[in-house]
């Protein structure tokens, strides 16, 4: 019976992992920046959108590894630079409430999204998966897009890379110490602003890269920025601020809620997303792996 259920829902489960992979790449930067520097970066969704349009720009017409690779490189670069700009912009607000930073970054997000809409129009634009990944493969007797399988793999590799850097290196220890108590990090002579710049840059680069990676599934279109921002915020709150493990588990949970939930109980799909959020907040206000509560 379990085997039958698994067989029936295999495609939804795999889709859930693919969405989860994408959400992890998107949310991990948001989680660390918020957990560490108390910067609630609402421009994170706009970075994803910018990445998606870069995907269209370089891999919209034809399927090519060069185009897709160029889009990924350009997105990483644009994300890094944008992270630097955001870090500089939010610095004067460092000691002010979250709402001030949220308003500033929301303003940036609205301007960026509008500029992209003016440049590219309101249609959903197609982003091609690279050759070899733009076809389907057989998985346990089911036909499944190869690109989505590859996305699951890429998500896992990025998760492992981020985990190793954050949990096993001195730089990562600095980031974790900053999440726990950044005043004591600066009392050791470390300039917090540089740590914030590096983390916001890396997190923003990952968000823009996620935009390219999500392109072959969701395309590039106005409004995507808000959709993915809300999903990423839900992942961050469920996983816990500043936790890599939390972002990973949170992304997998929300991926399944979005995919399997929609397949099994389509009428309750939207409710299930926020139901999961409410449940975690009631049972564990700090999130599943959070070191500190949002507030």
């Amino acid at each position, binding site marked *: 019976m379990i085997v039958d259920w698994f067989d029936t829902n295999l495609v939804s489960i795999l889709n859930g992992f693919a969405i989860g992979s994408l959400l992890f790449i998107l949310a991990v930067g948001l989680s660390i920046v918020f957990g560490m520097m108390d910067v609630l970066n609402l421009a994170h969704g706009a970075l994803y959108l910018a990445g998606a349009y870069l995907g269209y720009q370089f891999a919209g017409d034809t399927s090519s590894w060069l185009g897709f690779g160029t889009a990924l490189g350009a997105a990483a670069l644009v994300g890094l630079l944008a992270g630097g700009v955001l870090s500089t912009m939010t610095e004067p607000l460092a000691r002010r409430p979250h709402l001030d930073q949220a308003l500033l970054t929301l303003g940036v997000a609205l301007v960026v999204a509008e500029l992209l809409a003016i440049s590219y129009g309101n249609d959903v634009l197609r982003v091609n998966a690279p050759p070899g990944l733009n076809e389907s493969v057989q998985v346990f007797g089911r036909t499944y897009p190869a690109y989505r399988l590859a996305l699951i793999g890429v998500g896992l590799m990025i998760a492992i890379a981020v985990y190793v850097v954050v949990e096993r290196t001195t730089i990562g220890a600095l980031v974790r110490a900053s999440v726990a108590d950044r005043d004591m990090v*600066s009392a050791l002579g470390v300039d917090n602003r540089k740590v914030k710049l590096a983390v916001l840059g890396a997190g923003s680069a990952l968000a823009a890269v996620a935009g390219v990676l999500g392109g072959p599934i969701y395309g590039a279109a106005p409004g995507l920025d808000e959709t993915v921002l809300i999903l990423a915020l839900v992942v961050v709150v469920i996983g816990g601020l500043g936790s890599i493990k939390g972002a990973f588990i949170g992304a997998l949970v929300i991926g399944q809620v979005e995919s399997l939930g929609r397949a099994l109980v389509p009428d309750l799909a939207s409710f299930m997303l926020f139901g999961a959020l409410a449940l975690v907040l009631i049972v564990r206000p700090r999130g599943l792996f959070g070191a500190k509560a949002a507030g």
Partner: protein
Amino acid sequence: MSLLEVQGLRSGYHRGTVLHGVDLSLDAGRVTGLLGRNGVGKSTLVGTLMGLVRASAGSVLLDGVPLAGRRADVIARAGVALVPQGRRIWPALTVDEHLQLSGRRARSSAWSRERVLSLLPRLAERLAQPAGTLSGGEQQMLAVARALLTGPRLILLDEPSEGLAPAIVEQIGLAIGGMRDEGMAVLLVEQDLHLAFAVCSEVAVMDRGRIVHRASTSDFRRDPATAYRLLGVA
């Protein structure tokens, strides 16, 4: 000239001013006890000297270099270190990671990792352990080690004996003696008068945001009336 010269230092939080013009000087190779009732501004003074609470007026000179209003990392690199109240170790980081991070920006100093670990040997046995799983005493030793490894000339200790067993307090006292012998200036905020009197050569007493009394430890102990008036203890 003293290593640290503080004049007219004012600071506080958005709720209001806490320090109303602190004057204080600290010499290299001496331990000064900072005493006073709860809420008189001792921790705020320590936080302001470290740059974690912003100074609104006054001057702080470390060896002639102005530090008031500078960022904490600048002050730390100038040679000031803090062992904060409540330890504030990073629970998820191992002891070893604490020591590695502390040494990253270290000024050249006599406090090598080996020397610190020989002074606080319990830490050497716990290098791979997450700091959050240490006992209270071990966490306090880690907070002391973290501060020493930055190679400070001035160390600020905010109630290091709080909640610790007498044997651990004794070790902390020995460590403070080691800092003094190394030529560091030490400012010790302390409620435990036994520890304060044992290691401090002089005491400064705070009341309502100012230093209101300063004396050598021996003179202060001979004057129980003043101690009672200022601290509420005989």
